[in-house]
Each structure stands twice: as structure tokens, then as C-alpha cells.
């Protein structure tokens, strides 16, 4: 996506004429965008390359439906997000979240979040991210996606609506439900920590 000289519309026109080299250029151009979405929403046990390939194949299959009403990158992002969410829906959630599932570093971060008022140490950022993903793994796929986009990627409700096709009320309901579930999870973990 960083290639400023890339002529997207000329490339799309060539792809529509079944030009394989244009299709390859389009994949290379869009790969950073798609792989960022895939990595952010990757379900367990799914290879990121396989998921990225599915997204690109869907994009080519639906290319005739693209009329230019929105930016092409938005259109592709939407395909990527919906493909990821379909994969997340297909996988079963972990039955229970336990302290034993956490690495030592993640357990330290959780302990710090639950017991101290100070910020998490900067060198614990990676463990924090892993911990957040493990907690989000306890949510339903749709709720997880909303919280991830809202809190981790700091997207607005309007942006999420554009990406997912859900209306703003539904997004807010899902965010509320997800936060309720996370709150309960925190309370359970806190109880176990005290024991």
C-alpha cells in the first residue's frame, strides 16, 4: 500500500480483462492491508497465509460487484473482516479461562492490572497484548470483533459499521455485552487470585 506510483484503477481494469500479471500486482499491492487485518483477527489454529489467500480469492470472485462507491481498500477490508469473522464463528470458544493458561509474564501483568493502580510496565506490552487476546478469546466472535476494533484499534462506531455492515445500535449492544462478559471474567479471576 506504500507504493504511491501504483495505478489501482488501471490495474483493476486489466484484472477484469483476465490479466494474470495485473492480478499478481494487485495482490502484492493489497497484501500489507490484508495481512494486518488477518493478524489482528486471526483465529486459533488457522494459518495466516491460508486466510489471506481465501480473502484474495473472494475479492477476485466479487470484483465485478465493485462499483467504486467506496474506496477499494475499504471494500477489500470489509471482505477481509467478514472472512475473519466467519472463521472465528466456526471455531469453538475455550470452555474456561484459567490462571494456569497464562505464561509467567502474562500472569504478572494480570496480577498488576487486578491489584495495583499504576500503569502496566512498558516492557510488558507484548505480554499485555497476548493476555488481551486470550481474554477476547472467551467472547463470542461478533462481540470480540467489536471490542477489538473499539479498544485495541481505537476505531469509531461509524468506522466499525462501515467495515462490518452492522448498524451503530447493534455495535453498541455488542460492545456492552462484551464488556459485561469481560467484567465477569475479571471478577472471577480476582476471586481466584485472592484464594
Amino acid at each position, binding site marked *: 500500500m506504500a507504493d504511491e506510483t501504483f495505478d489501482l484503477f488501471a490495474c483493476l481494469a486489466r484484472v477484469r480483462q*483476465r490479466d*494474470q*500479471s495485473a*492480478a*499478481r*500486482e*494487485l*495482490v*502484492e499491492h493489497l*497484501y*500489507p492491508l490484508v*495481512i*494486518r487485518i488477518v*493478524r489482528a483477527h486471526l483465529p486459533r489454529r488457522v494459518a495466516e*497465509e491460508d486466510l*489471506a*489467500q481465501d480473502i*484474495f*480469492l473472494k475479492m*477476485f*470472485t466479487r470484483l465485478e460487484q465493485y462499483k467504486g462507491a467506496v474506496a477499494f481498500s475499504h471494500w477489500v477490508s470489509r471482505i477481509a473482516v467478514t472472512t475473519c469473522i466467519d472463521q472465528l464463528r466456526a471455531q469453538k470458544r475455550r470452555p474456561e479461562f484459567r490462571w494456569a493458561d497464562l505464561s509467567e509474564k502474562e500472569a504478572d*501483568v494480570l496480577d498488576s*492490572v*487486578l491489584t495495583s493502580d499504576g*500503569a*502496566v*510496565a*512498558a516492557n*510488558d*506490552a*507484548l505480554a*499485555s*497484548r497476548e*493476555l*488481551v487476546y486470550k481474554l477476547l478469546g472467551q467472547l463470542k466472535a461478533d462481540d470480540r470483533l467489536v471490542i477489538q476494533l473499539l*479498544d*485495541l484499534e*481505537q476505531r469509531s462506531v461509524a468506522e466499525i459499521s462501515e467495515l462490518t455492515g452492522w448498524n451503530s445500535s447493534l455495535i453498541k449492544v455488542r460492545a456492552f455485552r462484551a*464488556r459485561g462478559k*469481560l*467484567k465477569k471474567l*475479571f*471478577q472471577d479471576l480476582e476471586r481466584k487470585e485472592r484464594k
Partner: protein
Amino acid sequence: MKDFDSRWQKLVTAARQAPVAREETAPYGFATRVAAGAMCDAGPTVLAVFGRFSVRALWIACLLTLAGVAANYVVFAGSTGDDQNLIDPVSEVFTNAS
């Protein structure tokens, strides 16, 4: 909820600081493989062609049936009157027995 919110925000703020230092260019051969797959799959599948011809065949069969019925309507209509004049062998057997 407020207490939870502050804890959750503390955690996600820390999570957002995590560096993303992974490769973002397509692996070697990925784009070629995907492009080739997409260009090969884009044509009509055997199943789609079969489905399209099946629907056409169904319409043609319906039209031929209707044409056949219309062409032989006189024969069908006339045959019901003739049936009344046919001899019923079963009733004849009963009549002779009694």
C-alpha cells in the same frame, strides 16, 4: 463497571504499545499462486453450466408436454364418451352367476 473499565483500559493501553515488527510483504510465490488460482477459477464451473442447461431443458420439456396435450386434445376428449359403451366383463360374470 467503572472499576472494571479503568482496569480494562489500563490493559489495552499497554497492549497497544506492543511493537508490530513482522514482515508485511507477500511471501515469495504467494501473489503468483493466488493470481493463477483466481484467474483459473473465474470461468463458469461444470455444475453452473449443467444447472443452466437443466433449467432450459425443463422449460422445453414443459412446452413439448403442453403442445402434445393440445394436439391430442380431441382424442382425449372423445375417448371418455366411448368408455361408457365398453362391456364390463366383471359385472357380466356376476350377472350370469345370479
